[in-house]
């Protein structure tokens, strides 16, 4: 009588195999990066709430909204990056829908952040802002993000937001041409860097190595931190000037 030799143990079903997931340290890095950036953005947003409430200044309005929208954009970027890290996301219907949703929402809020950034740079040069300007920005962001989400292409999202930033820069140069306060000050450069690093962060939707991501994350977080420290310093002085000794 032959011995019973058991066959190979069946592995997990094929659709579960794709859920092996990324190394935990990669997820941890992404999570820490998100928490730092989103935390700083929300701190800036809430710290400027009082002075906006009192002044109703449009420049402060757009300035605050830059950081609110970046916080939301980074949240959905984290979701998309997490889904990208699954070995075989396309085999799973739910993650694919989630990925599409994260692309749409990251695109929408990222576009709004860039548009608000452009408005914050330009608002001084606008004599009278249209009452519907803000709603128009939402409309533009919504339409563009829907188009990108239907394509399910992070490259298209990257290209779209680069184009929006380029248009904003062009309008800025046209509006400030020949004026005394034209050109790039430290603030304008900081705002630009925020937008550029957000666009670079979209590369995370592609599988770029962590060795390239980490330095980008550190610099990007540093920029947000520098803005937060300036906001805190400016608002904590309470308008009081130091008296000479």
């Amino acid at each position, binding site marked *: 009588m032959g011995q019973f030799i058991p066959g190979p143990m069946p592995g997990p079903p094929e659709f579960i195999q794709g859920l092996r997931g990324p190394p935990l340290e990669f997820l941890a890095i992404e999570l820490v990066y998100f928490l730092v950036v989103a935390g700083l953005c929300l701190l800036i947003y809430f710290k400027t709430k009082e002075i906006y409430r*009192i*002044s*109703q*200044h449009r420049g*402060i309005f*757009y300035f605050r909204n830059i950081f609110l929208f970046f916080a939301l954009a980074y949240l959905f970027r984290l979701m998309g990056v997490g889904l990208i890290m699954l070995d075989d996301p396309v085999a799973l219907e739910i993650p694919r829908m989630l990925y599409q949703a994260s692309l749409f929402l990251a695109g929408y809020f990222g576009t709004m952040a860039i548009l608000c950034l452009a408005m914050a740079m330009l608002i001084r040069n606008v004599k009278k802002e249209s009452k519907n300007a803000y709603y128009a920005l939402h409309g533009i962001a919504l339409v563009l993000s829907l188009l990108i989400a239907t394509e399910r292409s992070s490259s298209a999202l990257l290209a779209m937001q680069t184009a929006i930033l380029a248009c904003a820069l062009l309008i800025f140069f046209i509006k400030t041409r020949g004026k005394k306060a034209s050109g790039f000050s430290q*603030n304008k450069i900081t705002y630009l860097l925020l937008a550029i690093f957000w666009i670079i962060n979209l590369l995370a939707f592609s599988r770029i190595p962590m060795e390239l991501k980490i330095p980008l994350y550190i610099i990007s977080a540093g920029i947000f931190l520098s803005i937060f420290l*300036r906001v805190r310093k*400016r608002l904590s002085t309470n*308008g009081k000037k130091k008296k000479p000794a």
Partner: protein
Amino acid sequence: MAKKRNRLEIIYEMLKIVRESHNSIRPTPLLRYTNISSQSFSEYYRELKEKGFIREEFDTKGRKFVSLTDKGFQFLDKYNLIRGFIKEFEL
């Protein structure tokens, strides 16, 4: 030649004039002391009213007087802070 005032400075001056007039002034003297065109004044006045910085009161003879709201007082108190912030971030 005096430097042209920006929007924030004009609002500050309008509210300051109201406060210094014992928080009650008629619109015509306010226009005169603010030293801007009547069209600009009407726009600023409407904006200040819509945003809740000032309110209108009427005396027994039906004459209109302008006074500051709490928000208007807060604006004056925080003006330097707001101006410094706007200047710092070039808004």
